[in-house]
């Protein structure tokens, strides 16, 4: 899925500044940054907060790191203006929603201002373990089904791009968040060099070059994509592909080497689907192959190297 | 910082001669632990080895030093360590590994008085039996006892040659007095000495067996990284290198590692004889004691006593046939050694019925003097 699926997004023609650049008025500007632990949500909000502070605004930033470890849901509220009281954004009040992960973006859509809210999303999908609702062979995942086109219909302005993949092409998939910053930079009326400076402050020293490139790519993307160019058949209507969680098709069912099995029972005890048992000779057998999800736990825990799941290719 | 000077005659301490001999033989790895009176070997190696891109390491203990040289040797380097009695005791288990798994290595044991901490700075020759039987079980081992600094140099080279060719640990056994003796040594530039290398296995075919040996009973050595991927173990192993308890295979293995020294004894054995042909009496001595014996024999000749000397240079395996041919017809043998009587037990095994065997032993941390030996030769002659 390449860079595609823009929308009725705020457009920039040659001479106009980036899209309806949000004006900071008496009411604060609300930016909500969401994603999955490890993606750089906090970095994005720090860049933004620092930048706003340098522009002379009062800034309040409220973040929840969710699960401390990689993989949990993370979000950060950034509010800035002449005066800011509450640190959190009420429902339907976000001017910009930056989503580093597709389903996390969907989760927070209701926070966007219905009439003017701008949704900036990375279409990359990080499927959480609990989305694997059914461990059955070939079972679908519980991941969000909404396509980009579905979302475009719901929000005022939408930029959706596979930033993670583009950043990976640049050399580091983690710079996807900076690409979104580049896109966001077109929606806020701050000088581009101030953005660049703020990014330099927070990007890891070794990754500054890649982050700067990602930032420019984000800006360029907004500038070069016009709603008129959008082919609705190219990506926009397609369901977002679900990242493979299971590898069912890639392995064959476990094969037990009876000569090596020492009857320790560990595979039987740890099989999550209870499809292994000991036969009359106390040797492990796969008695319910139809229940096997090819999770490979038995293979990895067999102390006797007696269970193999053969890779098909 | 002492300088090694190629192909010239230099004054060297015995321990330094041992280090330079090792280098001349191609030794490029030394691991050791400080112990009097052998530390000068390690010190000299720490100077010389880095200059020739070798490795010197002082390990945490004697056991680790022995382990490290075996590791280096298994990796393909010629390696040695040096120690004295107490440290030699600590090395014994790994020395047994070298004998069993047939890993070439050279160990210098500069003998001091014992038992226990004993007399660290005084000479003794009391490790004759430890050198032979120190490690457990039946095992092959070669022990060389030089009697001068030039001989330490040359015999250290030979020790490496034997170890590499026969895949057997070789012990350089000499006492503190020789270790700290300074003599003139002609140090080679490499052109005039013979260097032997181990036999490397070349073809890692599917049928390759790392411990299969031909008629010479010496298996080719496997160098890691050459594609063999074999197993080396201290457990009794079959020709494929893996452990076995099959009595037939065990016996075959044991015979091979013991017999390989027997069939190569021509290469291993060395000894010196002085005036033995028409002698009535024989002095058996080695190392520093042999030097005293030489003078005593000369003095005895002046007194008309027909006495010769047999000096084993290879102490183990003992040069039995040579000794038996020399002892034949002798009326008495004096075994002079700086211990309570160790080599004499071996000599007695080969004693003809009519021959008297006496020991001259000194266990006070002093060397045996020519006068002591001469007196005993006279006593031996007077008894007739």
């Amino acid at each position, binding site marked *: 899925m390449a860079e595609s699926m823009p929308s009725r997004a705020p457009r920039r023609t040659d001479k106009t500044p980036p899209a309806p650049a949000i004006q900071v008025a008496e009411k604060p500007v609300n930016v909500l940054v969401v994603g999955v632990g490890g993606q750089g949500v906090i970095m994005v909000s720090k860049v933004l907060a620092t930048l706003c502070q340098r522009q002379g605004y009062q800034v309040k930033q409220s973040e929840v790191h969710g699960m401390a470890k990689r993989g949990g849901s993370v979000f950060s509220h950034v509010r800035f203006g002449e005066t800011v009281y509450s640190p959190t954004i009420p429902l339907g009040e976000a001017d910009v929603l930056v989503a580093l992960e597709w389903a996390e973006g969907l989760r927070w859509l209701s926070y966007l201002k219905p009439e003017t809210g701008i949704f900036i999303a990375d279409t990359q999908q990080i499927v959480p373990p609990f989305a694997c609702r059914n461990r059955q062979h070939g079972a679908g995942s519980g991941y969000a089904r909404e396509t980009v086109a579905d979302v475009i219909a719901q929000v005022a302005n939408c930029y959706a791009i596979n930033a993670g993949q583009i950043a990976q092409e640049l050399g580091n998939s983690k710079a996807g968040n900076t690409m979104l910053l580049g896109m966001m930079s077109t929606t806020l009326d701050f000088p581009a060099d101030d953005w660049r400076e703020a990014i330099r402050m927070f990007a890891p020293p070794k990754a500054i070059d890649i982050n700067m490139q990602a930032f420019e790519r984000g800006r360029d993307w907004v500038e070069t994509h016009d709603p008129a160019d959008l082919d609705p058949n190219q990506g926009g209507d397609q369901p977002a592909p679900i990242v493979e969680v299971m590898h069912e098709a890639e392995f064959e069912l476990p094969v037990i080497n009876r000569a090596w099995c020492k009857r*320790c*029972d560990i595979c039987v005890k740890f099989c999550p689907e209870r499809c292994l048992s000991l036969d009359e000779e106390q040797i492990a057998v796969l008695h319910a192959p139809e229940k096997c999800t090819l999770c490979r736990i038995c293979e990895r825990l067999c*102390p006797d190297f007696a269970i193999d799941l053969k890779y098909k290719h | 910082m002492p300088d090694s000077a190629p192909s010239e005659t230099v004054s060297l301490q015995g321990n330094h001669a041992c280090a330079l001999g090792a280098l001349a033989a191609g030794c490029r790895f030394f691991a050791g632990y400080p112990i009097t009176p052998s530390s000068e070997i390690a010190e000299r190696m720490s100077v010389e080895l*880095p200059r020739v891109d070798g490795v010197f390491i002082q390990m945490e203990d004697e*056991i680790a030093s022995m382990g490290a040289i075996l*590791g280096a040797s*298994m990796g393909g380097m010629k*390696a040695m360590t040096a120690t004295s009695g107490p440290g030699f005791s600590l090395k014994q288990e790994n020395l047994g590994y070298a004998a069993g798994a047939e890993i070439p290595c050279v160990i210098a044991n500069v003998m001091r008085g014992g038992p226990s901490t004993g007399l660290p700075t005084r000479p003794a020759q009391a490790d004759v039996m430890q050198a032979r039987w120190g490690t457990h079980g039946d095992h092959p081992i070669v022990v060389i006892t030089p009697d001068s600094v030039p001989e330490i140099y040359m015999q250290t080279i030979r020790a490496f040659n034997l170890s590499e060719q026969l895949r057997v640990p070789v012990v350089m056994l000499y006492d503190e007095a020789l270790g700290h003796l300074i003599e003139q040594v002609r140090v080679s530039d490499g052109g005039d000495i013979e260097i032997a290398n181990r036999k490397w296995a070349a073809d890692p075919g599917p049928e390759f067996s790392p411990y299969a040996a031909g008629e010479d009973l010496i298996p080719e050595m496997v160098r890691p*990284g050459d594609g063999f991927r074999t197993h080396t173990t*201290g457990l009794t192993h079959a020709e494929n290198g893996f452990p076995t308890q099959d009595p037939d295979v065990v016996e075959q293995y044991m015979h091979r590692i013991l017999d390989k020294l027997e069939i190569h004894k021509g290469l291993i054995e060395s000894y010196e004889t002085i005036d033995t042909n028409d002698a009535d009496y024989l002095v058996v001595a080695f190392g520093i004691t042999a030097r005293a014996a030489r003078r005593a024999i000369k003095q005895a000749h002046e007194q008309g006593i027909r006495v010769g000397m047999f000096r084993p240079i290879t102490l183990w395996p003992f040069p039995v046939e040579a000794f038996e041919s020399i002892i034949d017809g002798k009326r008495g043998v004096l075994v002079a050694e700086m211990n309570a009587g160790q080599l004499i037990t071996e000599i007695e095994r080969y004693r003809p019925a009519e021959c008297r065997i006496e020991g001259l032993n000194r266990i006070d941390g002093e060397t045996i003097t020519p006068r002591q030996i001469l007196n005993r030769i006279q006593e031996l002659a007077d008894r007739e």
Partner: protein
Amino acid sequence: MSEADKQFNIHDYLREYLFPHFLCPGCGHGIALRALLWAIDELDIDKDRLAFVSGIGCSGRLGAYIDANTFHVTHGRPLAFATGLKLARPDLEVIVITGDGDCLAIGGNHLIHACRRNLNITCMMLNNEVYGMTGGQVSPTTSDDRFTTTTPYGNHEPVFDACALAEAAGAGLVGREITLQTPSLKDVLKQGLAHPGFSFIEVMSDCTEVFGRKNDLGSSAEMVLTQKASVRPDFLENAVDQPFRPHQIKTGILASNDRPEYAESYRNHIDAMKRDHGHA
């Protein structure tokens, strides 16, 4: 799951003709060996360059089953042998497989000095709390009150924390994992192998047949679950200690540093000497 993981075939690394191996049913050592070979496979290390050095005991026997250059040496000394081997052959990837008795009791001195030197060796210590091969005697890591054949009234000796020891002695990388968490164990071992200095990885193995039976610890499945229950998750790091879980162990990478690697600093010193003294 990476492509390498999918294609990892354990049988590429085993001397199949020696199987089934000699370990007792349910012995965690086999799981640890798989994780180690899995890590090696992911790092794509050439088998000809792999050198395994192991000592004596159940752990020491594992080397023989690996299709690589394997050295089964004397009790407690694999680190000493490995030091010589690695210094003589820097091109080899030297891995030591050892056990709690081999590494911490008879070989304790070698461990602390291997950590101090920081030579590029990976040491995998399989901790099953017992001398299994000799019939189940107490080891330096046997837990409190456990019965062994030499603690018939329960063990009263304090337990050695091998990782704390290795860290204090300066090991370049220190890690610990239980066998049940096989992918994590593989990752910890992989980081150990990739670390340029000395890596010490303690694997919490289980001895079902000897230690487990003597102490009524149940089947190997039950033993590894008990182990899992005693693992302290990261987020409890600063939480109040839980007094009812006396055997809590920390897992993962526990320490790492970038002290100079021994062989490299040795070479640097020699090069400096050669420059200073004009030796070519």
